[in-house]
């Protein structure tokens, strides 16, 4: 095994000897395997040995960056980053690399079963998923993939940061097509997390299969205003977007986001709290430190309906005169950005039973949309990719060719109830959420 910290230290020293006043190395190594399915059969098994290094150097207030996939080029990368710093222009807002902070290790980020997962085992998982999905009526094709990766990341800087951490992640998704004569539909489901135990292949398969199967019966609905229940499966473009894009310190600082200048304002229903938490034990988005080596934390974004904080890395925090929230996102081939960890929606006062949540005369259940809001103005117009009609308290039939439109703030303010059961999906943790009024457009 390569000692990432010692490679990082060599790199930082080399950059300094080339004239860097400050330098930082970000390194990653690891392994990833995946198995992909087509029409219910394994199509491709993949494996990848991961490696990469990126170096940030500072000379006279000028920042340069270079990267390579090969760690044996690490010292060359250091030299190039200094050269790039010399060729760059001063950035008056760059206040230096972060000082080392007190990092308390977050539990539950590494599962040796994921790290050692063999392709043959992944093939078995996939087999279970496929047979569960195929058992549903009308299913003609099952696609999907399972992947498992383990990474060691390291951050080393001339300020004294010297950190490394091993993390695993795994996911299994199913995308299912169903047909019945001229009718066609699709279904989707996913499990993901840091532990193999979070993957339930037969559940994923049967949920996706069932969704496709029931969506074969789908009606067109009239354009109008409907109450909408949003499934936790599709919270990413809602609360995920709110935190990772709209409350993103960089977007706020440059005035790109509709949340800029809105601290202290009411942006959600009074009972709603939305947090970013990098410290959650076992969380899919958790880490002990961020991409710059800053300790992660729990940051309330919206507290009881009121916008309280944005998320920051060192640069955006420095420019806005606050502390970094430990939200530097990173890959080895670019400078740190700003990204969310685990985005959590809590609304204990609005919790109701599922029966009460769906107690609507006529409404829409949104299972999945792949759209996202407009960052500048907050308007969200998108397709009901998978959705159902709710009639007299029952989910009755699928809907097709429908789209919706609402301002993200109106949507959050319009939350009048949430379910009791929370679900973690791809970095968001939320119960199902009901919104009073959403404009839904059908083909008539």
């Amino acid at each position: 095994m390569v000692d990432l910290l010692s490679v990082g230290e060599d790199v930082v020293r080399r950059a300094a000897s080339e004239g860097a006043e400050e330098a930082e190395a970000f390194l990653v190594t690891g392994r990833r395997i995946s198995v992909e399915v087509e029409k219910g059969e394994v199509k491709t098994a993949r494996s990848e040995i991961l490696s990469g290094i990126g170096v940030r150097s500072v000379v006279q207030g000028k920042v340069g960056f270079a990267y390579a996939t090969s760690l044996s080029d690490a010292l060359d990368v250091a030299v190039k980053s200094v050269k790039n710093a010399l060729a760059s222009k001063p950035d008056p807002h760059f206040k230096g690399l972060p000082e080392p902070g007190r990092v308390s290790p977050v539990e539950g980020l590494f599962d040796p079963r994921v790290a050692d997962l063999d392709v043959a085992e992944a093939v078995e998982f996939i087999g279970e998923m496929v047979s569960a999905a195929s058992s549903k009526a009308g299913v003609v094709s099952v696609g999907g993939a399972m992947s498992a990766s383990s990474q060691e990341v390291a951050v080393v800087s001339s300020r004294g940061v010297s950190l490394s951490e091993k993390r695993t992640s795994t996911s299994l998704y199913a995308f299912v097509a169903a047909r019945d004569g001229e009718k066609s539909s699709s279904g989707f489901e996913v499990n993901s997390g840091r532990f193999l135990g979070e993957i339930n292949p037969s559940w994923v398969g049967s949920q996706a299969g069932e969704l496709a199967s029931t969506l074969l019966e789908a009606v067109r609905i009239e354009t109008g205003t409907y109450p909408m229940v949003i499934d936790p499966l599709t919270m990413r473009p809602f609360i995920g977007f709110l935190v990772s894009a709209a409350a993103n310190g960089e977007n706020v600082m440059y005035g790109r986001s509709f949340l800029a200048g809105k601290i202290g304002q009411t942006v959600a229903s009074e009972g709603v709290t939305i947090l970013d938490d990098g410290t959650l034990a076992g969380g899919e988005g958790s880490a002990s430190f961020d991409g710059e080596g800053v300790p992660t934390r729990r940051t309330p974004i919206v507290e009881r309906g009121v916008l309280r904080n944005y998320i920051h890395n060192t640069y955006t925090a420095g420019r806005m005169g606050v502390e970094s929230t430990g939200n530097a996102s990173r890959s080895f081939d670019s400078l740190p950005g700003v990204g969310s960890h685990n985005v959590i929606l809590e609304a204990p006062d609005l919790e109701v039973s599922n029966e009460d949540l769906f107690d609507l005369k006529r409404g829409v259940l949104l299972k999945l949309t792949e759209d996202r809001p407009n960052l500048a103005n907050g308007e969200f117009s998108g397709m009901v990719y998978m959705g159902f009609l709710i009639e007299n308290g029952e989910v009755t039939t699928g809907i097709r060719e429908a789209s919706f439109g609402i301002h993200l703030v109106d949507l959050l303010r319009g939350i009048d109830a949430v379910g009791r059961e929370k679900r973690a999906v791809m970095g968001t943790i939320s119960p199902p959420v009901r919104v009073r009024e959403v404009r839904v457009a059908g083909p008539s």
Partner: protein
Amino acid sequence: MRSHPQARVMPDVERLVERAESLGAEFAEVRWQRVESTRLVVVDGTLRELNTGVREGFGIRAFVGGAWGFSTLHGGDESAAMRAVEEAVRLASAASKLKSESFKMGGEPSSGTWETRARMDPREVDISQKIDFTMELNDSARAVDQRVKNVNVAYVDTVSEERIANTLGTRVSQEIVRTRAAVQIFAHEAGTTERAFESVGGLGGFEVVQTDKALAMGEEAARRAVDLLSAKSAPAGPFKAILDPKLAGVFIHEAFGHACEADEVLAKMSILEGRIGERVGREIVNVSDDPTLPGLYGSYAFDSEGSRARKKHLVREGVLTSFMHNLETASRMGTVSTGNGRATDYSHPPIVRMSNTFIEPGDWGVEEMFAEVRDGIYAAGSLYGYTDPAKGEFVFKAEGGWRIKNGERVERLREVAITGTILEILHNISAVGRDLQYDPGHCGKFGQWVPVTTGSPHILVERVVFGGMR
């Protein structure tokens, strides 16, 4: 091949292919690639990022008993690559355990050497010249209006050297140079923020971003962002609509192109399965995919499997005529690769992808189309789009638009989603303009992003659903 000062010894990919064959692979492919890139980001006049880097490695595919093994190795170490070959064969064997049927990987060998003719090779253009270019775009955008709040300029050039060899006997070497620049502007006034986006990109060097269009895109995007400040939310429901070339190009890519990808067809994920020869639209509709167009962002001479690029007519006079293939889908469907096997880079296997996909020009003038619309929407600019090919529904997002009343633009509209179904939409196109335009972009599929071009003239659509808020 032109000798280049940085020319290096390329690895012996043939030897690796032979090894895979000797281990029992029915088909094997070895790709070695080295991608050098420069990326600049300027935000509000500050150079935020000056980034240069190298990605190098091997992507190795082996085919055994109907299943694929694919292994990726980062770095140029040939002895490690030999182990990656063994891994690929092992993976394929493990994957084939659950495979009930196989097929024979066929195809003609392809050979050749190709190199992008870059007039201004990005490796020879001084970094200060690239910085000056991004700064000028920033300044020209900033000068448009005081309401311009945030100016973002990005510049990227990549030089990719590639060697591809497979057991069919294919031996291809190529060097692909691409350059792209993009501007995103946010304008702000009295509590309202709007954005607009412009980009240019193509096969070639720094000359790609030295055109009049490229140099004017800062101003163009800034004007549009400011203009959008007075826009209203779009209405919801079905409307007669005119789509501008940018939007119509993304529309044909999303709504139709993806359903013509043969891997989607074979996976039973395409609504167009079994419809070759059927009428899918009016006679005025012609759709093509052509990677051979000189200089476009989605152009190439050989695809990632080494197959020679060629033009395909997907729809001719309203009739579905062809799908797009890579070596695998062609083998399974008894045809030949159309040169659409593309991979993001060596760390991904080649899958069926579009290149430059466009609606061929018709004979309508834009003003003639407006005269046809009593009450409708002119939708313009594109943010993104996606499709559910199994169900046959698609969505794409317009940057903005105008309400049309009696042939006149009467009200500026904001971003809006447009939805429809693949099997109906081409029947609803009632006029195709003469003004074909191309736009560069990136298309994502199965986690792989590749450079593409979308293109179209203005088109008139009798009925399309807008997901507006009113």
